[in-house]
C-alpha cells in the first residue's frame, strides 16, 4: 500500500492480475422488494480496473446493483463476490452463510460510493468531510489525513474550499467534494450512482471532467449508473443495458451506442437522445 491518495498505474491495464480474478462477480443474484423482482438471477462480472456503465430505464435494477455492492441492501438470493471474497455472504465452517454486520463492515471498505444527492455531512466543513473516515476507519493521523484530503481537494479543483461548509457550495462543488471523500478511503471499486442527475446543467461538466481525469490517471474499478451517454462513451470499457432486472445487451460503448442489437436498447437510446 502506498500513502498516495490514488492507486498508481494508468491507462487500461490492470497490471498483472490473473484473468480469472474478478473485482466484482454477481452469481445468480435475486433481489426482491416484497413481490416485486428487481434483479432476476443476475450474473455478471467486472475485471480489475474495468470501468462499466449501467444503463437502462428507471426501475430496471441498475441502482440496486450499486446499493447491493455498497451493502445498503441485502440480496434475496445468490452471491456477490468482491475482489475474491464473498460480500453478501461469509465463510463459516466451509459453507457460505449470509454475512453478519462485522463481515460487512470489513468488506465494504474496498468500495466507495458517490450518491446522486451528494450526502455530504452538513455539520462538518469540507476538509473534515474528507478526513473523517480515513482517520476514524483507516487510523490515519490527523496530519496524514489532512495531507491526503488536500491533495484530493486539489484534484477536484476545490483546494480553496477546505474550510467551507457544504451548504456554502454549489451542487457541483458538493459533488466534487463527495468524490474526494469517497477516494480518500482508497477504495478498489468506485460506485457512481447518477452523480450528475441532481445538478444544474451548467455544473455537470465540472463533475464529469473530474471523473474523466480519474478514469485516465488511475486504474480504479468503476461501476457507473448514468444518463450521460457521451460520458459513458468516454470513460467506460463496457456498457451493460438493463431491462426488468436482467442484462439485455452488453458491448463496448462505441459498438453499443452506434449499433445496438437489441430492440429494447434501440428504443431506450432513442428516448434518451430525444430527451437531451
Amino acid at each position, binding site marked *: 500500500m502506498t500513502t498516495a491518495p490514488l492507486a498508481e498505474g494508468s491507462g487500461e491495464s490492470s497490471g498483472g492480475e490473473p484473468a480469472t480474478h474478478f473485482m466484482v462477480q454477481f452469481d445468480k443474484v435475486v433481489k426482491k422488494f416484497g413481490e416485486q423482482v428487481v434483479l432476476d438471477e443476475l450474473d455478471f462480472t467486472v475485471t480489475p480496473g474495468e470501468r462499466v456503465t449501467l444503463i437502462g430505464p428507471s426501475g430496471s435494477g441498475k441502482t440496486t446493483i450499486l446499493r447491493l455492492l455498497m*451493502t*445498503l441492501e441485502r440480496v434475496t438470493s445468490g452471491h456477490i463476490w468482491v475482489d475474491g471474497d464473498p460480500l453478501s455472504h461469509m465463510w463459516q465452517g466451509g459453507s457460505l452463510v449470509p454475512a453478519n454486520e462485522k463481515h460487512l463492515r470489513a468488506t465494504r471498505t474496498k*468500495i*466507495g460510493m458517490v450518491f446522486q444527492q451528494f450526502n455530504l*455531512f452538513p455539520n462538518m466543513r469540507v476538509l473534515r468531510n474528507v478526513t473523517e473516515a480515513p482517520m476514524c476507519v483507516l487510523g490515519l493521523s490527523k496530519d496524514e489525513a489532512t495531507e491526503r484530503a488536500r491533495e484530493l481537494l486539489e484534484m477536484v479543483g476545490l483546494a480553496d474550499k477546505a474550510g467551507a*461548509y457544504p451548504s456554502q457550495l454549489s451542487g457541483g462543488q458538493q459533488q466534487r467534494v463527495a468524490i474526494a471523500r469517497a477516494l480518500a478511503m482508497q477504495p478498489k471499486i468506485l460506485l457512481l450512482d447518477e452523480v450528475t442527475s441532481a445538478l444544474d446543467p451548467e455544473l455537470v461538466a465540472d463533475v464529469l471532467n473530474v471523473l474523466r481525469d480519474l478514469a485516465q490517471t488511475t486504474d480504479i474499478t468503476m461501476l457507473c449508473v448514468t444518463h450521460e451517454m457521451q460520458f459513458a462513451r468516454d470513460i467506460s470499457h463496457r456498457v451493460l443495458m438493463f431491462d426488468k432486472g436482467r442484462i439485455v445487451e452488453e458491448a463496448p460503448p462505441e459498438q453499443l451506442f452506434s449499433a445496438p442489437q437489441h430492440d429494447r436498447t434501440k428504443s431506450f437510446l432513442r428516448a434518451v437522445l430525444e430527451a437531451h
Partner: protein
Amino acid sequence: MWDWDNAIEVFPLILKGLQVTLIATVFGAALSYVLGLIFALLRMSRLGWIRTITYWVVEFIRTTPLVVQLFFLFYFFVPNVLGIRPADPLLVGIIGLGLHYAGYTSEVYRAGIEGVPRGQWEAATALSLPQARVWRAVILPQAIPKVLPALGNYTIAMFKETPLLIVLGGVNEMVNMAKGFGGRQFSYVEAYTEVAAVFLVLSISAALLVQLMERRLGRQRV
C-alpha cells in the same frame, strides 16, 4: 385586601423560594435531556427486547401522573433502591421531574433523529464509519440543534410544574414559601400574586428565548 407591607415583606422570601425553583428546574431539565437521549437511543437499539422494554418504560412514565411518580420515588425508589434515607425531598423532586420529562424529551429526540435524511446514514455506511461514530459525529450533531426549541418548551413546562414538589413537604420553592408566609400572616393574596408574577416574567422571557432560537435555526441552511 392588598397590603403593601405584606407585599414588601414577602418578596425576599419569594426570591429565596425562586432559588429552589430554579435549582429544581435546572437539574431536572439536565436530567431530562440526558435520560431522554438515552431513552431515544435505546428505542432505536438493534436488539428488539431493548426496544420493547424502553417503549414500555417511556409509555409508563408518560401515562402516569407526575405526582404519583413523585410519591413512588419518595417512599420507595429513593430510600430503598438508591438507599438514601430519609429521602431528600428536593433530590426526589429533581429525579421525578427529570424522569417524567425524559419521557417527553425522548420523543423529541426521536423525531429529530428520524428527521436526519437517510442519505446521511448511507453515506456514513459507504465510508465504513463505525456505528457509534455515526451517531456521535454525523447524526446527533444534525438532530439535536433542530430539537433545541422543543426541549426548551418542555423545560418551560417543567419550570411551571415545580410547585407540585410541595406534596413532598420540605421543598421550599416559591409556592411553598408563599403558602408558609400566607399562613403566618393570614393573607395569601400578596404572596401568590408575586409568585404568579415571577412565573409570568420568567416564562415569557424563556419563551421569547426559544422563539429567538427557532428563528436562528430556521435561517440555517443545514
